[in-house]
Every structure is written in structure tokens, then in C-alpha cells.
């Protein structure tokens, strides 16, 4: 066990690697890892089928006259045709929402959300991280598993999930959830919000994958086993 300066307690060990003692930390509990990979799968399916559904009417305006907003290549889509895509979408929406709710309940019951929830006090840490990534400044010292920029990204991803779920509910049942449709400006505008939710996810996923590639195997492996070898906040 280690108590981090931020107040977070992590399971930690030392490992004897050929005589060299390396600190290891259990960063991603089992529930979080399961949710992460289920989420990866369901987002892949929901975005791919969502784009196929969008092709059926690739506009946000009226049907007459129809002005297409974006030509999505069929190759980027899943489901084959509108009906097929809807079947996938109506199946994986349950997996996505179930996963999301399990994640949120777990994070708040265990207090693990403190590891990743972006708080106002994290705001001042965002700019130094951006300077590090884009202007190659020195990397700010890390005292906990996630830096401020990561917290911002992961918290935003949760918000994109909430937006996608609520707007999806309206598109699925605009009459039964007419009060919620009203919140988003009616059925017609809710379609735009739902699309923006996907754009948010695409932005997040792009940044996330670039970072995974930049940070290498050790970092990626932690999302499989939960254990991070030699995290910088534990270097003694």
C-alpha cells in the first residue's frame, strides 16, 4: 500500500528485477479494466453503426429540400444497411449504458473516482501538460497516476457518454421522453447533439490512441493486468 500525496491509496509492491528493486502500483482495478475494454468494443460498434444510420439521412436539415452534410464512406460503417446497423445499435446501447453505469457506481462506491475526476484544482495543471506535449517543455512532476490533462480527457469522455446516452434516449423515444427532448431543443436538434457526442468521442479516442502509442507497452499493459511497473510518482 502507498498513500499518495493527493490522498489516494494504491496497492503497491516492490519487485526484484535482477537485483534492481522496482516499484509497482495497482492502478486499474478489475472492474475498471473490464469496463474499459467493454467500452472500447461498444464504442467501436456504436460509432460504426451510428455512421451507417447517419448515411440513411446524412443531413441535419429538412427532408425537402435535402442538403447532405457529410458523405460517410460505407467502408467506415458497420451493419451493411440501415436495418442491420439499427440492430447492432439497439443491442450495444444496452452494453454501453450498462458498462457506463457499472463504472460510475464502482468509482463512487470505492472512492476510486478521485484518481481520475477532473476537479477545479486540476485546472492549473492542464497548461503545463499541454506545453509539455506540444512545445516539448519539461514534463511536470507527477504525484498521482493521472496528470491534469488526463483527468480532463477522461472526465470529458464520461460527459460525452452521458450526452450520448441522454440524446440517444430522446432519438429512441422522442414522444415518451418529450420533456428530455425539450431540454435538447426538440427531436430535430437532439440529432445534432447526438452527433456531437460522437464527435467528442472520436476526438477523445484519437488523442487516447496517440498517447497509448507514445507511452509504450508498459503503460498499455497496465490496462490489461492493472499493475504499472515503475510509475514515476513512486520513484524513490
Amino acid at each position, binding site marked *: 500500500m502507498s498513500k499518495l500525496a493527493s490522498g489516494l491509496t494504491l496497492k503497491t509492491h516492490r519487485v526484484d528485477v535482477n537485483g534492481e528493486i522496482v516499484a509497482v502500483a495497482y492502478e486499474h482495478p478489475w472492474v475498471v479494466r473490464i469496463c474499459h*475494454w467493454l467500452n472500447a*468494443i461498444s464504442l467501436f460498434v456504436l460509432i460504426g453503426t451510428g455512421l451507417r444510420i*447517419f448515411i440513411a439521412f446524412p443531413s441535419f436539415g429538412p*427532408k425537402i429540400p435535402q442538403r447532405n452534410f457529410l458523405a460517410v464512406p460505407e467502408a467506415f460503417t458497420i451493419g451493411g444497411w440501415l436495418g442491420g446497423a439499427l440492430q447492432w445499435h439497439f*443491442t450495444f446501447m444496452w452494453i454501453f449504458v450498462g458498462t457506463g453505469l457499472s463504472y460510475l457506481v464502482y468509482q463512487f462506491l470505492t472512492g476510486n473516482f478521485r484518481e481520475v475526476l477532473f476537479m477545479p484544482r486540476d485546472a492549473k495543471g492542464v497548461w503545463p501538460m499541454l506545453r509539455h506535449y506540444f512545445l516539448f517543455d519539461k514534463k511536470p512532476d507527477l504525484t*498521482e497516476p493521472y496528470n491534469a490533462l488526463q483527468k480532463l480527457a477522461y472526465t470529458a469522455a464520461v460527459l460525452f457518454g452521458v450526452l450520448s446516452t441522454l440524446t440517444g434516449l430522446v432519438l429512441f423515444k422522442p414522444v415518451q421522453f*418529450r420533456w428530455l427532448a425539450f431540454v435538447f431543443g426538440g427531436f430535430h436538434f437532439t440529432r445534432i447533439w447526438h452527433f456531437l457526442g460522437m464527435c467528442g468521442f472520436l476526438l477523445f479516442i484519437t488523442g487516447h490512441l496517440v498517447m497509448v502509442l507514445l507511452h509504450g507497452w508498459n503503460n498499455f499493459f497496465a490496462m490489461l493486468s492493472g499493475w504499472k511497473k515503475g510509475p514515476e510518482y513512486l520513484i524513490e
Partner: protein
Amino acid sequence: MDEHRPEQPPHSANETNVPGDEPSQAQGEGQVCEPQREPEPTEPAAERDAAEETLTQREWRKLNRREILKLTPIVLAGAFVIPGLRTPLLREGVALSDWASGLLFSKARFAPTFAPSAVVPFEKFPYNGYDVLDPNVDLDDWTLTVEGKVRWSGEYTLAQIRDLPKIAQNVRHVCVEGWDAIGSFGGVRISDFLRSVGADPRARFLEVVCADDYYESVDMDTAMHPQSLLCYEMYGKPLDRGHGAPLRLHLPTKLGYKHAKYLTGIHVTDVLKPKRGYWVDQGYSWFAGI
């Protein structure tokens, strides 16, 4: 770096580990060895539990293996890649969605209605047909065949249907493709018509057949919804041939493909035929409630 605790000495005995500290020696309180050399003048970010064991590499690998094995439930998602499993799984997914849709549906919840100013002009209300826009219905000889669990089954003329109280409503038409248009619709309540022909109030479904060989079926709760119409008018004028003359379904709580046009017959039943709907049989949701 606001996480420093400068008020505490960096080497306070119970709190920090410093390089050179052997974990096995660090357990006795108050007698932590001073390091041989001065540590870097950085603040430690974490308080380590001094009693923490040091794993061998073999133990470390075993620990990782065990944790990775815990992810095996994810493999179940691979069922969606196998065609023989994918089809039934997706069917269950849609069935689950339809079941939830049925639960959410309430006859007391109305589709929003709009002022005439919000209605799109007639020319901008899309014609949508699966096959032909004019199946050449003989409007003069047209009758509606009523069958199934009804007391007075038989042929009904448009005039007989129009004798029932007329309802006119401006509601949003939502297409499965994603477009929507607010239109103006007039007709008689399906519920009024079913009562007038003595339909069994406990029957579960309404099936319809059409002049263009389209067919559909809806749950009786939706058919009995006060906004569900046998529609013979749009924009105050008799239905034109493109919109389903002389009679179509208008179901403000359902997606557009349930609003069958060119009706020729309705069937009140407890058991759906295997063919439930033209698009439904190809994979669209049957309930299609909105």
C-alpha cells in the same frame, strides 16, 4: 506541485522511504537507518507502507497473469463475430429494446402537437413509398375489409368511416432514416372505429394489409391510443394517391414505416401472423415506438 508538505521534514522516520532503505530493515519504528548518502532534494510523492513485501520476478509474473485472466469475460463479446451467434444475439438485442419500448409506452402520454405555423408546407412533406407511389386503388369501389375478433366483420365504405367523430392533429412524423417533418393529419380514432365494429377489447394486435402489398401490425395499446388514427385527410384535404389514398394509418407514437398506406383490410387478432410487417420482416424493430 502544491502537494508538497513542506511543514514536514522530508525524512520523518515513519513516513518516507529513501534510497538505500531496505524494506526488511525499515519495520522497527523509530530506528530507520539514516541513508548512507543524501537523497535527491525532491519531496517524495508517496508514503510507502514500509512493511510492503518485495516480490520476486516469478511472483510478479504470476500476479500479472492472474489479473489478466480476470478479463476473460470480455471474450464473450467475441460471440458477435461468429455469424451463427450474431444473428440470434442481435435479434435478442432488438427484442430487449422492443420490450423496454412497450414498458415505456403509456396511452396517457401524447405526442406533442403543434400550432399550424409549425407545420411544414404540404409540398415539403415527403412522399415515402416502399414500392410504387400509386397502386391504382379504385377510389369509387374501395371498401375496408374488417376481420378477426370483431362482432360486425365485413366491408366498410369510406363514408361509414367518416361518420365517426373527426380528429385533426398537427404532429411530428419521425422516419427511421432520421428525418422528421411536422404535418397535419385528419381522420377517425382507431379506437372509435374498433368500438363501432364491435372489436374484442382484449384482443392484442391489429394487422393491416394494403393495396400495394405492404403489410404491418401494431400492439393494441398503440392502436387504442387517442392520437392513433385511420387517416383520410392531410392538410384538410382528402389523402392524395402518393400519401395513401383513400385511407392510411397515422400513429404519432410510432416510426413512419408503421403508418401503412392504401389500407384495404384490418384484422383484429391475438396471434400475429409470421409476416409481421414489410420492413419488420427484413430486420426493423417491430414495436418501433417513439
